[in-house]
């Protein structure tokens, strides 16, 4: 629910400019998400005990679920990726469900999602180069050297496809929500919002981190 259909299709509004650089709604809303995450983290980490109370139980459930997901997807040897993957998941998930509060989700902006895709892209190649070294670069010429351009295009397409998937889903969800709340004002938008904002938002952030983990794992270790 972020206003009328025209507002959604117009793209993010510019809130203010710094030295001619436009600071759009997406940036400001990302700041809000960051502030919420930092405050939540500060609340949850206060007086941790061996025998957890309610608050600490919630935090432990989230951390253990993410830990289990990373370990089962990437293997026990890549357990150290959990903080990064978990942060990306929480950031994207909170950005996606911002539509419930009447704000424009930052992920409904291709610049933002493409930036997330570029982060994944850099991670894939950094960790692959670190793990395999020169043989990783030679791997682009496999099985024949003629496939080199196709392999490179395939790699370059990854951030675009990751970004497009997230952006398209979120923008599509926003458009449908704007249409529904434009047509029927009572009760129906609330129910639709559960699917289009909550479920779809969590699912898409889950997909994003799953693909990130799988890409990093495939590029990093080719045995097992």
């Amino acid at each position, binding site marked *: 629910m972020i206003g009328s259909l025209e507002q959604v*299709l117009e793209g993010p509004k510019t809130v203010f400019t710094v030295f001619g650089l436009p600071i759009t709604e997406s940036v400001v809303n990302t700041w809000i998400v960051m502030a919420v995450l930092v405050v939540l983290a500060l609340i949850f980490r206060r007086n941790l005990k061996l025998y957890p109370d309610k608050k600490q139980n919630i935090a432990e459930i989230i951390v253990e679920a993410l830990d289990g997901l990373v370990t089962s997807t990437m293997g026990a040897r890549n357990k150290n990726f959990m903080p990064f993957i978990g942060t990306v998941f929480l950031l994207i998930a909170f950005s996606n469900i911002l539509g419930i509060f009447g704000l424009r989700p930052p992920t409904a902006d291709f610049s933002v999602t493409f930036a997330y895709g570029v982060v994944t892209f850099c991670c894939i190649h950094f960790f692959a180069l670190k793990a395999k070294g020169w043989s990783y670069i030679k791997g682009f010429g496999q099985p024949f050297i003629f496939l080199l351009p196709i392999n490179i295009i395939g790699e370059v397409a990854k951030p675009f496809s990751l970004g*497009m*998937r997230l952006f398209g889903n979120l*923008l599509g969800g926003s458009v449908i929500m704007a249409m529904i709340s434009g047509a029927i004002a009572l009760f129906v938008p609330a129910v639709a919002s559960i699917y289009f904002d909550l479920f779809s938002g969590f*699912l898409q952030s889950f*997909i994003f981190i799953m693909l990130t983990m799988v890409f990093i794992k495939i590029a990093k270790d080719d045995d097992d």
Partner: protein
Amino acid sequence: MGWNELAVAAFAVLGAGIAMIGGGFGPAIGQGYAAGKGAEAVGRQPEAQGKIMTTMLLGQAVAETTGIYSLVVALLLIGIVNRIL
């Protein structure tokens, strides 16, 4: 607004519709196939339901990608119409 702009707007709307025809068919078939296979797998191994569900949703989301691409194309075309009219 002249005839030229009107024609561009009309064909942009038409193109958005055609893009969504293709973008609706493919992912629908792919997601339905994945869901069917997922149901089969749960029927065979009900104890592995959680894992099958996760794999199925992931596969469906990847299958959806092409549909999302055509949705983006359609939205861009409608954006052109918004700018002209």
